[in-house]
């Protein structure tokens, strides 16, 4: 599972396989029924251990992960998963539990939904992320800024020719910022591009993703480009010296 999960969904009718890890068995069954007409094929696991095994064995395009799990927690599953896979993850958190949400995003989840969620919203988010993964690669050629190189076709980012691991969302954000380097991109725009949905009130997930991305770039030794926050407007990638 070291490969990047990029699935070309040119055929809209081809079913996408999705794994859900949630200890609520009945919910999993009902969601399977609900998502089937949208060509989303749901497989349910009841514990974190089973979920990790299933991911190891099968070829899934997206993971829906409940944070509150018996045994190893959803956050722990996410942490272990991110050591070897960049599969898009939507996590389910308890509403009002900001800490879980923020930590989840910091651990590399792509998006989140507060439980109990509107199932139509879940379907929309799954589709947004899958769409991003399928269409993103065709949009443009290689992007470069200073030591950073981003290749949409291979979904690879390098800093000083050393590969840099990014989650799907971080990759999209970086691409968006690289395309418009030196210009401010609004949070709304970033949200649309990276998460495939509009910005919601009290939603700071894009800020968390940006701060993760910033951290990874700094760790890779990027000194000649930095992401700046333009308060109330958005973010901007600034080329260094």
């Amino acid at each position, binding site marked *: 599972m070291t490969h990047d999960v990029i699935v070309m969904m040119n055929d809209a009718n081809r079913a996408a396989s999705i794994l859900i890890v949630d200890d609520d068995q009945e*919910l999993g069954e009902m969601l399977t*029924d609900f998502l089937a007409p949208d060509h989303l094929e749901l497989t349910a696991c009841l514990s974190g251990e089973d979920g990790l095994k299933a991911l190891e064995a099968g070829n899934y395009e997206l993971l829906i992960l409940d944070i509150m799990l018996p045994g190893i927690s959803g956050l722990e599953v996410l942490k272990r998963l991110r050591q070897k896979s960049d599969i898009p993850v939507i996590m389910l958190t308890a509403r*009002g539990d900001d800490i879980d949400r923020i930590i989840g995003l910091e651990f590399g989840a792509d998006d989140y939904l507060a439980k109990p969620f509107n199932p*139509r919203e879940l379907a929309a988010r799954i589709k947004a992320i899958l769409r991003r993964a399928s269409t993103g690669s065709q949009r443009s050629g290689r992007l470069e800024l200073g030591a950073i190189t981003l290749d949409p076709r291979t979904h690879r980012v390098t800093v000083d020719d050393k590969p840099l691991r990014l989650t799907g969302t971080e990759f999209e954000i970086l691409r968006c910022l690289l395309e418009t380097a030196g210009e401010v991109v609004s949070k709304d725009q970033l949200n649309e591009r990276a998460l495939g949905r509009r910005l919601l009130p009290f939603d700071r997930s894009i800020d968390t993703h940006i701060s993760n991305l910033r951290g990874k770039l700094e760790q890779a030794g990027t000194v000649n480009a930095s992401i700046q926050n333009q308060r109330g407007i958005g973010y901007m990638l600034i080329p260094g010296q």
Partner: protein
Amino acid sequence: MRSLLVRIFLSFWLIIAITIGFAALGGYYYSEQIRQAIENYEVSDTVIAASTALDTKGRPGLESWLKDLPSKYPVTVFIIDQNGIDLLRRHVPPRIARILRRFAQHHLSGSGHRREPRNLRPARPLTQLVGPNEEVYTLFVVPKRSAYGEWLNEQTKPLMLLFALLVSASVSYALARAITRPVHKFRQATVAIAEGHLGTRVADSMGKRRDEIGLLARDFDSMADKLQRASEQQVELTRNISHELRSPLARLRVALELARRQAGDLPEFTRIETEAERLDNLIGQILSYSRLESRDQEAPAPVNLAELIQDVVENVRFECRSDGIEDVTVQFDPTEEPIIQGYAGALGSAMENVLRNAVHYSPSGGAVMVQLSQSSNQATITVEDQGSGIPDDELENIFEPFYRTRGAVAAAATHGTGLGLAIAKRAVRKNSGTIQADLTSHGGLRIEIRLPI
């Protein structure tokens, strides 16, 4: 605390000072009496009295005179017979005995000279008395030594007094400190616990005391343990209840969508969806309310209030648009940027709830005014709406959980959980601030939040 220290200290000191004073006064009075007696005393009076006694009643008379001398007599009188023995068989001081022996050798052998009175003859420093049978008694007086009187003489008296006061003051102070210091520590701990720091303990700071205060400290700690456990259990319970309530709610929503798909979009489905959302909001609010009371892992950090409010205002505007409240405006133009030490999450949730409340009670086309100002030691946030306000006597109560004002019963049922302002109050209190409500001149509601800088 200070006053208790001062009171105990002064009481102890006063008691000690008064005791010393009385003792000194009594001692002084006694020694003064003796001093006066000594001053007025004439050796010849004693000698004449003794001589008279011997003359009239012989040796027994002299003995009984000697025995009956008053105890306050300023001198001790010794009368030694020819055998060198005191009449009252007292021990003769050796120095006196030596002089006596020498004196006896030289002057007592011949007793030819007689003067008036005939049994009296000068013998310095000793006086001899001659009895009816020509027996010779040697009389001498030793002044009573009043150690106290010498000790407390005029030069050392003020110095002694100062010394006594200093010693008693330091002893009193140490004693008072020993009592009030633990009281001070208990008070600090109690305040800390009241502020929600339930991990506060006192026994460690008391050392290894085994006295009543040490026991009290241990009891205090076990009480704090129980409080902490109860509080943690309550938060845990609320968390679990909320989680357990949400699972069926989550299934309900999926079931609803499945039903919609099969039966078409009936208006009842929308109603069920709205109610499920309301239930979910309520659970969320209960969770945030109970969490605000629990112990916090995060430390207070600098918070830029203008930025924080700006964020919340934008989010609430956004929320209004998606809730279909398009014609209420929220105005906020900060001129100052106070920075406080606090919990950004709690403050954001306080602002959010106060603003939501203001927006929901605003009339169509109304404006909500948010203002931020700063003085030397506090930041003040006011939120005013143009709604119909609430009755004066209910202003205090709107921060109570689930409180419904009389006029708002009908309106409140449609929005809000009844916990918004209660959450705001807890969140402000967590930041050591105060929140209060009053009415604007136009009758709208004004909420004022004050936060220490």
